[in-house]
C-alpha cells in the first residue's frame, strides 16, 4: 500500500527532545517557531513530539517525507548544525536498555522500517548541544543561534519539493501549552544553584559553587 498513491505526499515536521533540559529543547523550539511564523499547505503537519519515544512511531509510519529537528551527538563543536539525509540517519534497536524511557528516536525509525512503513525521504536537522543536564534551563546561546539557520534549511528543503509556505498573518493555535513557550518558559526559571545546575560531577563538569564534600 503506497502512502501517497500519486497524491500529495504527507510531510511531517517533527521536533523532538525535552524542553525542560536546556539544549534538549532545540527540536521542539524549532517547530514552535515555524508554527508561529508560517502557514503551511494542508499536507504538511507540524508536531511537538517531546520525548514520546515509541509513541511517535505511527506518525513516522504515516509520513512520506519526514523532517526531524533534534539535538544530536556527532562529537562536533557545541552549536554546530548538521543535516543528515535519508539512509544516513541512524536507526537501530536496543534490547539492553534499562527503561522504556530510553527509547531513542533511532529505535522509532528502526521500528517503522520493520513494519514496512518508512518515509520515502528523511532529513534530520540536528545541533550539537552544549548543555543537557540543566533541568529547568533553556537553550544555550550557541544553540539558540542555530534556530534561524535550522529553519532556513527546512524551508529550503520544502521549497525544493515544491512546498510553499506563507507568513503567518494571524496568531495560530500554539503547538504546546502557552506557559511552555520560550519567552514565558524562560521568564521564571530557577537560578543555577536552585536548579542544581552544577549537578552530579560524574556527568557534569565542575563549576564554581560545587560542594567540596
Amino acid at each position, binding site marked *: 500500500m503506497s502512502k501517497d498513491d500519486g497524491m500529495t505526499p504527507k510531510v511531517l515536521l517533527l521536533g523532538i527532545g525535552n524542553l525542560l533540559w536546556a539544549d534538549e529543547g532545540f527540536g521542539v523550539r524549532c517547530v514552535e517557531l515555524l508554527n508561529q511564523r508560517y502557514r503551511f499547505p494542508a499536507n504538511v503537519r507540524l508536531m511537538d513530539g517531546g520525548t514520546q519515544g515509541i509513541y511517535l512511531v505511527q506518525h513516522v509510519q504515516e509520513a512520506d517525507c519526514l523532517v526531524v529537528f533534534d539535538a544530536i551527538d556527532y562529537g562536533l563543536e557545541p552549536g554546530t548544525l548538521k543535516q543528515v539525509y535519508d539512509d544516513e540517519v541512524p536507526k537501530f534497536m536496543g*534490547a539492553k536498555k*534499562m*527503561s522504556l*524511557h530510553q527509547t*531513542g528516536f533511532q529505535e522509532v525509525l528502526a521500528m517503522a*522500517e520493520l513494519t514496512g512503513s518508512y518515509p520515502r525521504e528523511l532529513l534530520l536537522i540536528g545541533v550539537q548541544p552544549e548543555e543537557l543536564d540543566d533541568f529547568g534551563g533553556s537553550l544555550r546561546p550557541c544553540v539558540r543561534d542555530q534556530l534561524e539557520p535550522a529553519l532556513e534549511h527546512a524551508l529550503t528543503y520544502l521549497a525544493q519539493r515544491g512546498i510553499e509556505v506563507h507568513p503567518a498573518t494571524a496568531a495560530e493555535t500554539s503547538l504546546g501549552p502557552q506557559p511552555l513557550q520560550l519567552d514565558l518558559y524562560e521568564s521564571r526559571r530557577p537560578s543555577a544553584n536552585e536548579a542544581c545546575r552544577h549537578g*552530579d560531577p*560524574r556527568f557534569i563538569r565542575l563549576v564554581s559553587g560545587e560542594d567540596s564534600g
Partner: protein
Amino acid sequence: MSSILNASQLDASGRRIVVDPVTRIEGHMRCEVNVDEQNVIRNAVSTGTMWRGLEVILKGRDPRDAWAFVERICGVCTGTHALTSVRAVEDALGIDIPYNAHLIRDLMDKTLQVQDHIVHFYHLHALDWVNPVNALKADPRKASELQKLVSPSNPKSSPGYFSDLQNRLKKFVSGGQLGIFANGYWENPAYKLSPEADLMAVAHYLEALDIQKDIVKIHTIFGGKNPHPNYLVGGVACAINLNDTGSAGAPVNMTSLNFVLQRIKEAQVFVDQVYIPDVLAIAGAYKDWLHGGGLASQNLLSFGTYTQVPGDKSTDLLPAGAIVNGNWDEVLPVDVRDPEQIQEFVSHSWYRYADETQGLHPWDGVTEPHFELGANTLGSRTNIEQIDEGHKYSWIKAPRWRGHAMEVGPLARYIVAYCSGREYVQEQVDRSLSAFNQNTGLNVGLKPFLASTLGRTLARALECQYCADTMEDDWHALVNNIRNGDSSTANVDKWDPSTWPKESRGVGINEAPRGALGHWIKIKDGKIDSYQAVVPTTWNASPRDHKGNIGPYESALLNTPMERPDEPVEILRTLHSFDPCLACSTHVMSPEGQEIIQVKIR
C-alpha cells in the same frame, strides 16, 4: 523463599557486578550486585544517577499552569502527571469537577494505562524472555499450531502469516545497519522459548505496535491532541455537543464517541486474545523462574484509583491500602495527608536534612542537593567504579509508609485489591494461577506465584484487561449522563486567583501505570510556594534508609541465580518487571548507536 528486608542481612563479600548506562545522556540508573560462588545475588544496590529538580522549576509559577510542566517530566507517562497536578490544585482550592469531567479523566487515564502496559510488555519487557534471533529458526507451520493452541480465538494464526513475517524478519536482519537484534544476549541459556514461540512473540510485537497507536487516539478526542493532551484545572478541556446545531464542530459528539467505543473494543480483543495468553505462555515456559518477589510478599502500597462515586474513595475499583510485614490478611487504611504516614528520608540519598534520622512529609519536603561519596567508594568522583552503599549513594530519596519501604505498581494494586476482596480481581488472579498450575503440572500457591517477577508482569496484563473492560462502563455512563442533559465539562467558579485564599495546600493522587503517584502543592498569593512529587519509581528504586530498610528493586534482586554474571539478563528481567521510569532526556541522536548499558565485574 523468605524476603530480605534489612541491609544487615546482606552479604557483600562476593564478586561485584556493575550494570550502568554509561553515557551521560543515558545515565539515569545504575545497579550493582554481589554474587556468591554459585552466582546467586546476595547484595543489591540501586542508584538513581540523575538529579531531577521538578520542585524548583515550579516554584513561583501559576498553579493553573503546573500540569503543562509536569507533563514534560516524563515523555512516556505524560498524562498521569498532568492529571495528578490538576487534582492537587483542585484539592488546594476546593474545586469539585463535573461528573462528565470525572468520567472523561478516567477514560483518558485508563487509555494511558492500557497503551502503556501493552507497550511495556511487548516493546521493553518481552525481550527479556523472547529471543527474536531464535525466531529465524522457527517452522511457520508449527508456530501456527502453537498460536491456535494458546489462543484459539485469535484469527492471525495461519502458517502463511508466520512465514511472511519470518521472511520480513530475515530480510530486515540481513539488510539493516546494525540490525534490530544486534544488541542482546541471544546466546544466553537464560532464554528458554522454542523458536516457534519466539516467532509468535515477534508477530505480537508488531501487532502491539499497531494496536497502541489506535487506542491512544482516544486522547486526541478528549485531550485535543496527542502527544501531550490538554488538561484543565476544574475539569477537562473539551466541549460536548451531541445533537444540537453545531455538534459537528464539537470535539465530543456522537461520531467521536462512537469512534472511542470502537477503539475500546479493539483493545479488549487484543488483550483477551493476545496479551493475556502470551503472558501465561511465557510464565509456563519459565515456570522455574519464580524469583524477583522481594518486598512484594511483604510491603505493598496503593493510593487507590478509578473512583466510581466522585469523592468517595471507598468506591475505587482498585482500592487504596497498605499491607505490611507480609500479612495479606489485613489491609491498612492510607491517608496521604497524614505527616506520620508518608515520609521521605535522605540518609542514603544525595540530599541534606537538618536531622537525617527524621523523615519529612512532602508538604514539608526539603530538596537540598548534597553530592558526597562514602569512604569505601572505589574510583573517583567522576568515575565511580564501585559505589559505597553504606553512605549516600542515590539521587532518589527514600519514601516510607509508617517507616516501611513499600512496593508500588500494578502488582501492589492487585494484591491490595485481592486482599480487599475485590471480586473481579480475585477471579482474574485465581483463573491465571490455575492455568499456570495446569500448564506446568505444578502446585504453586498464591503468594509465591504473585510475589515474583512473573507475578508483577502478570498483574500488569490483568490490570490492562480490567481497564479495557471497564472503559466500556465509563463510556456508557458518560453517554447516559450527557443524554440526561448534562453537558458540563468544567467548573470555572474559582478560575480567577482573586477568589483563592491567601494560602492553601492540597494533594493530588493517582495510580500511574508504574504505581502510586502523589503531588503535594502549597499555594501562596496565587503562586506555587512549594511543590513535591513522589513518583512510583521513587518508591520502587528507593535506596536504603537510616535503619537499613532496603527498597523494592534491591530486595527483588536478592537470591536470584544468574546464568552468566557478565550478561545480566536476570537483573534486567526483574528491574524491567517494575517498568522503571527514568528521566526522559534520552533522545539525542548519535551515529554510533546507543550503548545502552555496560557491565563490569570486579
